[in-house]
């Protein structure tokens, strides 16, 4: 097995679902009316991934809004804030921690179980990591950033254990905020470790938008089996560093720029994979997009994924890889 293809997590919501979610947020559509549309979109994305031959699937997070508030909505001790600006004319809501964090019931397991039932291929369990949850939340309760990160780690550990019990073979814990503060990287390691402790499932962490210079020495210390990195958008700058300081775990290597409308050519993606193969062994190298694809249109995301799979196949064929 080599050059397995996968995705980072989110896929765009088809227009019928986006419209329904807007109505739902205004109170004009019930949960019961929304759910079949979320299931329909999830089925479509699972079918698409199978059709183009992706090896490790995701459910596409059609039932999630923001990756942090989705968890906040499902935890005791957590509320959701009013709108704040993300950039330009984009706004989002943030978690507000107002009491001791507790997980009254599992958050992602029902969806994971349902979506895994649609495919014979492995489907990743997807969590937002404790450091990112902490960094992206307002905190009105805990005494310090560390205390809050560790409280999130505890409930996420419970969730990861439940996913594993349900049969998840791979659990991804996203930490896009990982590189936010260079002086808190030890806390990232500690909090992530508290989530992954005692898990038998393969663990993955994804990060993006980073000052990787400061983070680099920590890659081998992150207590996960695989790191998933945005590589295309950062111009593959990191490769030389990996040549000098080898990674001692698996890597999922982003070959698709998720921020651009432009569809990469197969030749471009092949070249990125070939460059990755100069550094990484094919058995430990996974191929995926830089980040979640939810900001692209369905058509753009599908076209990008098709190119990714075709390019990976071409590289494997040229090199005689299984």
């Amino acid at each position, binding site marked *: 097995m080599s050059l397995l293809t996968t995705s980072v997590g989110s896929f765009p919501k088809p227009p019928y679902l986006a419209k329904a979610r807007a109505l739902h947020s205004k109170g004009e559509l019930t949960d019961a009316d929304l759910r079949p549309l979320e299931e329909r979109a999830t089925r479509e994305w699972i079918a698409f991934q199978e059709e183009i031959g992706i090896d490790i699937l995701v459910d596409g997070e059609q039932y999630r809004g923001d990756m942090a508030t989705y968890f906040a909505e499902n935890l005791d001790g957590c509320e959701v*804030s*009013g*709108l*704040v600006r993300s*950039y330009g004319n984009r706004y989002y809501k943030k978690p507000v921690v107002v009491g001791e964090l507790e997980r009254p019931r599992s958050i992602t397991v029902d969806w994971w179980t349902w979506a895994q039932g649609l495919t014979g291929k492995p489907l990743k369990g997807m969590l937002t990591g404790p450091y990112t949850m902490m960094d992206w939340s307002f905190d009105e309760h805990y005494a310090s950033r560390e205390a809050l990160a560790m409280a999130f780690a505890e409930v996420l550990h419970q969730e990861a254990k439940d996913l594993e019990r349900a049969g998840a073979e791979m659990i991804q814990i996203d930490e896009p905020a990982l590189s*936010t503060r260079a002086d808190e990287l030890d806390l990232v390691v500690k909090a992530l470790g508290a989530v992954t402790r005692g898990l038998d499932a393969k663990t993955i962490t994804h990060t993006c938008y980073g000052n990787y210079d400061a983070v680099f020495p920590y890659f081998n210390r992150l207590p996960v089996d695989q790191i998933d990195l945005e590589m295309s958008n950062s111009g593959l700058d990191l490769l030389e560093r990996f040549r000098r300081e080898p990674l001692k775990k698996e890597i999922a290597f982003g070959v698709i720029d998720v921020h651009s409308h432009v569809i990469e050519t197969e030749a471009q993606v092949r070249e990125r994979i070939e460059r990755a193969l100069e550094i990484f062994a094919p058995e430990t190298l996974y191929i995926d997009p830089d980040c979640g694809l939810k900001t692209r249109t369905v058509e753009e995301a599908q076209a990008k994924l098709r190119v990714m799979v075709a390019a990976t196949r071409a590289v494997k064929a040229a090199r005689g890889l299984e």
Partner: protein
Amino acid sequence: MTSTTVVGSYPRIGDAPEEQRLRRAIGRFDEGKVSEADLREVERSVVREVVEEQVAAGIALPTDGQVTWSDSQSHFARHLDGVEVDGLVRYFDTNTYYRQPVVKGKVRWREPATVDEWRYASSIAGGPVKAVVTGPFTLATLAKSDGTAKRELVRDFASAVAGEVRALQQAGATHIQVDEPAITRAPEEVGLLKEGVERVAGEKGRAWLCLFAYFGDVAGILGDLAALPIDNLGLDLVQGERNWKALAEAGSEVPLTLGVVDARNTRRDDPKALARSLLALKGEVPLEESHVSPSNGLEFLPREKAREKLRLVAEAAKLVEAGL
């Protein structure tokens, strides 16, 4: 007397539908459904609302809330020659993004970026309105350039920012603030910052000039900053907690803007505790000539929380005043 101010930005939308009219107007403008003049009218109505909210909460020296700014970097870059605006980059540790300016040629000030909005905000405030510009050191640090030495970049951006400051003071601005958050992340580069601020200060005329360093502390370079040709030094005393000790030890002769109300968290600050901490600096810093403020711009908070923080600033300042 101890006065009150804000650092600059303010949430331009709230959760009530009426408070989201700017978001809708920008969306419709982007779709080509409303004219630029229509959009400006909505922007103005929000600037008015934001200024009125600050004044009503007891802020003596408000700003225009930076309501028209896309972000703190590209808003200026769009009015400069030699700079283009590129993709999104994370803005410090805020989980917000700015469009990154890319230096493509000699950086030059072309036209005012802030004068119209400052003038409009002034027309409704009933008192002075503080004009805010992003500082040359921060512009140079967050921009992308191909190999130009940073010193040269800071100099060029400083000349450009000096052009903006000149335009502001010629338009009648009596209070101008230069934001330099990037220095909290690179205090060893204070020499470059100094060159930039000196160049900018040279164009301030008779205006009061504040240098504000937020998103961290400047404890190790407090003396260097206080020695700059400025009238006021703005400090983040929340994320830059180490500033407290530095102030207690070294004091300050320069009046300060004391960013004590947490602008990054929704937790309600205790104005009594803040006033006590500030009064402990009595004798070390000129509290009577200083301002109390949030720790940085308020746009990272939901609108209703930003309103509450304004009231907390005013309350803390009153308690300090009573204790002096």
